[in-house]
């Protein structure tokens, strides 16, 4: 978001840096604790749901970096899930042993990301969105043709599920820890990527793509790297999902699925890694939770399917509400609290003077307070220079 009117004082900046510094280990700890609790307390079905959320969080993080931080709206994200899943299927059918197909899925998705990116990222904004839409239809078509061409796979492929030698309950627990590990790696990677100089470059491209090269930012290369990485993560997620649920079918990779991922990213707050995980939990968890509890609670007034549909309607409405009223998503509430406490403890007397960096076309923050992320202040200076 291009809201930048405040420049935090140095003490606030230090506070926030310190919070960011401890934020990552704290977040990872929270993830581990929640996995521990989930695997100990939940029923098998709910651990499976937890696993699904962890999987969705991977793609959601990839997209929040791509869309929220770098500003490239990709509609074809479910196509990369399909690429990963089908590469894994193909590799397994070609006789490759288990972890190799996952690695291959990752590599192929990254490569395809580079190809689509090289072609599409020269475009900006809506054109890029349309190009990814076209790529989506083409990938799904190819996947469908491949599926049709294999005997006995018209309705989809059966994939060997992992940990199947263990009892069901243990298998889901093993999955939960495996996915927690993978997700932790992705969280650390995304955190490092968006917090570094690259992150600032991405935000500059998002806000002022035309001015970015003048600051020495390699626009195409940065966009390409982000797009390829996010494609790779989505591909990895697709391949892992196949091994969790035990089947891969081209019909499941729909545009609706792609929209659900956009919803996750927006609900959590564009560009927020924590938010992406929260968004994944809301979008994947809400329909399940609703169909379990709502139909019970209302005493058969709604069926389980209707409850799940209601949940779907609810989070789509939530997305619209967030876009209109709080474009920074649910994660921004947490950030407000952090800012409020840091203001209370530190620099209450030194209220920051608002810096007038907002052009006529740019939205202003509602208050002159310091509710801004640390990196955005660099943006503000850059923008000020380029926004005459």
């Amino acid at each position, binding site marked *: 978001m291009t809201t930048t009117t405040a420049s935090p004082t140095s003490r606030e900046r230090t506070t926030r840096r310190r919070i960011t510094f401890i934020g990552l280990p704290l977040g990872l700890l929270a993830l581990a604790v929640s996995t521990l609790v989930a695997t100990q307390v939940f029923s098998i079905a709910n651990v499976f749901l937890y696993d699904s959320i962890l999987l969705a969080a991977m793609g959601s993080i990839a997209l929040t970096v791509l869309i929220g931080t770098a500003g490239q709206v990709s509609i074809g994200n479910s196509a990369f899930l399909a690429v990963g899943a089908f590469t894994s299927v193909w590799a397994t059918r070609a006789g490759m042993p288990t972890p190799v197909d996952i690695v291959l899925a990752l590599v192929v998705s990254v490569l395809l990301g580079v190809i689509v990116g090289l072609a599409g990222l020269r*475009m900006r904004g809506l054109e890029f969105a349309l190009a990814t839409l076209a790529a989506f239809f*083409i990938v799904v078509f190819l996947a469908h043709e491949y599926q049709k061409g294999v005997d006995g796979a018209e309705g989809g492929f059966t994939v060997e599920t992992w940990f199947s030698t263990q009892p069901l309950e243990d298998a889901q627990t093993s999955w939960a820890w495996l996915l927690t590990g993978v997700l932790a790696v992705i969280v650390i990677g995304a955190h490092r990527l968006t917090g570094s100089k690259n992150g600032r470059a991405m935000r500059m491209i998002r806000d002022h793509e*035309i*001015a970015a090269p003048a600051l020495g930012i390699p626009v195409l290369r940065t966009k390409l790297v982000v797009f390829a990485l996010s494609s790779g993560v989505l591909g990895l997620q697709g391949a892992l999902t196949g091994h969790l649920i035990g089947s891969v079918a081209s019909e499941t990779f729909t545009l609706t699925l792609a929209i659900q991922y956009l919803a996750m990213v927006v609900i959590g707050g564009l560009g927020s890694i924590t938010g992406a995980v929260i968004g994944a939990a809301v979008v994947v968890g809400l329909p399940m939770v609703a169909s379990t509890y709502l139909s019970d609670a209302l005493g058969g007034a709604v069926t389980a399917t209707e409850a799940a549909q209601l949940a779907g*309607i609810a989070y789509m409405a939530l997305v619209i509400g967030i*876009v209109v009223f709080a474009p920074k998503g649910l994660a921004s509430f947490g950030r407000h609290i952090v800012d409020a406490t840091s203001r209370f403890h530190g620099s209450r007397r030194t209220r920051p003077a608002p810096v007038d960096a907002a052009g006529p076309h740019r939205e202003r923050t509602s208050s002159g307070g310091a509710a801004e992320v640390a990196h955005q202040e660099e943006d503000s200076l850059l923008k000020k220079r380029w926004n005459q």
Partner: protein
Amino acid sequence: MRDVMVSLLGGGLLGGTYALIGIGLVLVFRATSTLNFAHGQLMLIPAFCVARWQATHDGSTILVIIAAVVLTALISAAFYALVLRRMTGRPLFLALIATFAMAGLLDGVLAMLFGPDQYSLQLSALPSGSVSIAGATLSKASLVLTTLTVVLAVSVVALVRLTPLGLKVRAAGQDALLASQGGINVGRVYIGSWIAAGVLAAVAGIAYGSQNLVTPSMATVALAAFPAILLGGLDSIEGALVGGLIIGVAQGFIATYVGGQYLNVATYGLLLAVLFVRPQGLFGTRETVRA
């Protein structure tokens, strides 16, 4: 020759539908600078309403059709007034995501109201029977509908091209600030554009639904109009007409000579090709660089 006529006329009906959808999308694009990915759902609303009414009631449906069209226009206008109008001056992708969320929201509501069933939609006013043109047998109904959609599309283009009202629409779409300085109520033009887009979507939905089954997947027809408006030029209303007809007829020929399963690939391959070769399309304005 028979195959050619079948492709041409079958594609023509599709092309007329694409043209109606495309003109709606372009009007909305000029008003809001975003692509409306909920347009397909706007087509579904009236098609489902009318088909459901026909399944449960007897008698004339003309009033129901009018009510359904009005309802669609209202939803379209409300979406603009309550959501997209607030996106002015915000990053483009927020508005884009809002239209996606609207699509998902309407999908959910329609699924709850109408279930996964298929409906058939009959327009009793259309003539029955079929005619033979150059060896090709075509139903009279589809010919009438083709003519109707194309005539409607052409008249909207003429309205925007030739009348003082159209001049206002074009001015407001070109430069909102200058237009308002010139005494045009830009807000009213924009909401009018969304109402018109809703009406066009509703007509397209009913026309398409009467020739095909009404199912939730009908919304993908609107997505195929994106290649059409890109080909014509994203901001060009006559471009949407020409692009829609070209894509429709091209799909007619692909369905006859190559095979129906290749329709999507070919259409979106064309979209990619246009993006590469001529991103401003046939009649569009080249995007100027805004710093």
